[in-house]
């Protein structure tokens, strides 16, 4: 085995990096891949709660780096998917507890034991971001169709190019088809034209995401909704499958509301 190390980053906070990491981890594991998801947001860990594994954490990545435990001991096994693991961030430490070299070392140890290492990057362009991209073979950038998020994504693309970490691929998250239709939201082609990067997924806004975060059950696990499908499609694209981008459903009209009623 030689894992692909993929970092999920964004620049701006709150655009869905952690949600994307959790769901891609789940979706890849459902496709039979052995996945380790690393929370690289030291001091502000959240991947554990989004994956629903917060009560099973014993050690964290800083413990591994400081030699308090072995790497294997810190890996939290997902209760639902035997091939999915979480390496949690430390909550009571800060970014200075980890260096880029430490991250590379941890990832190289994991490389022979799994198919994918997914790294959930912290927001920003500081040390935490640098640590998260240091070991990456590939980078996925998450953005929303908003001016501030797209601007920050552009900055990240520039930094990745300077580091020789490109070309990154883009996930456009939380797109609202009805707003796009009304001319009140940037559409996928707008964002792609502006950023000039390859698209790997479009994820529509979906209330199921908030519900799933409430429960600690990522949507990709069993939800039949649009966001779940979108994340599962991205996982298949990561595995080289040619999956067409889905047509987004407009749920604002009468038909859409009816469809929502039927689904719920």
């Amino acid at each position, binding site marked *: 085995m030689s894992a692909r190390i993929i970092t999920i980053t964004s620049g701006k906070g709150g655009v869905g990096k952690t949600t994307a990491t959790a769901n891609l981890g789940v979706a890849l594991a459902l496709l039979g891949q052995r996945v380790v998801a690393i929370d690289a947001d030291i001091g502000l860990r959240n991947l554990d709660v989004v994956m629903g594994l917060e009560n099973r954490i014993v050690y964290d990545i800083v413990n591994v780096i400081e030699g308090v435990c072995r790497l294997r001991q810190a890996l939290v096994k997902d209760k639902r998917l035997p091939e999915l693991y979480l390496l949690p961030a430390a909550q009571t430490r800060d970014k200075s507890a980890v260096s880029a070299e430490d991250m590379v070392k941890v990832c190289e140890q994991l490389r022979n034991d799994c198919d994918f290492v997914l790294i959930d990057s912290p927001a920003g362009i500081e040390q935490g971001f640098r640590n998260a991209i240091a070991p990456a073979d590939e980078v996925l950038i998450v953005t929303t169709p908003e001016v501030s998020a797209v*601007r920050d994504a552009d900055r990240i693309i*520039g930094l990745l190019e300077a580091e020789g970490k490109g070309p990154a691929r883009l996930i456009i998250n939380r797109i609202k088809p009805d707003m796009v239709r009304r001319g*009140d939201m*940037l559409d996928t082609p707008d964002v792609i034209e502006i950023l000039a990067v390859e698209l790997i997924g479009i994820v529509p806004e979906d209330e199921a995401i908030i519900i799933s975060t409430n429960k600690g059950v990522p949507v990709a696990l069993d939800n039949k909704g649009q966001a779940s499908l979108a994340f599962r499609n991205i996982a298949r694209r990561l595995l080289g499958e040619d999956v067409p981008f889905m047509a987004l459903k407009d749920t604002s009209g009468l038909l859409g509301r009816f469809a929502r009623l039927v689904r719920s």
Partner: protein
Amino acid sequence: MPSSREIAKERLHLVLVHDRTDISPGLLQILKDELIAVISKHIEIDREGVEITFTQGKRYNRLVADIPVLGTRGRKG
């Protein structure tokens, strides 16, 4: 009235030109003033008509100076 989507696109295009080149609108103005001063030493130009713009390539930008020339001083004199 352009849609807010169109406005967002236009604003992003402009702000990213400055972000990517690290040239602020203020610096652009300084460049423009200095260019006008230097070129005016040698040729007569329409100062009001000078336009300094960026044209966008895929991920690279080009600084374009459009300077209307009225005639060289040499010829006039």
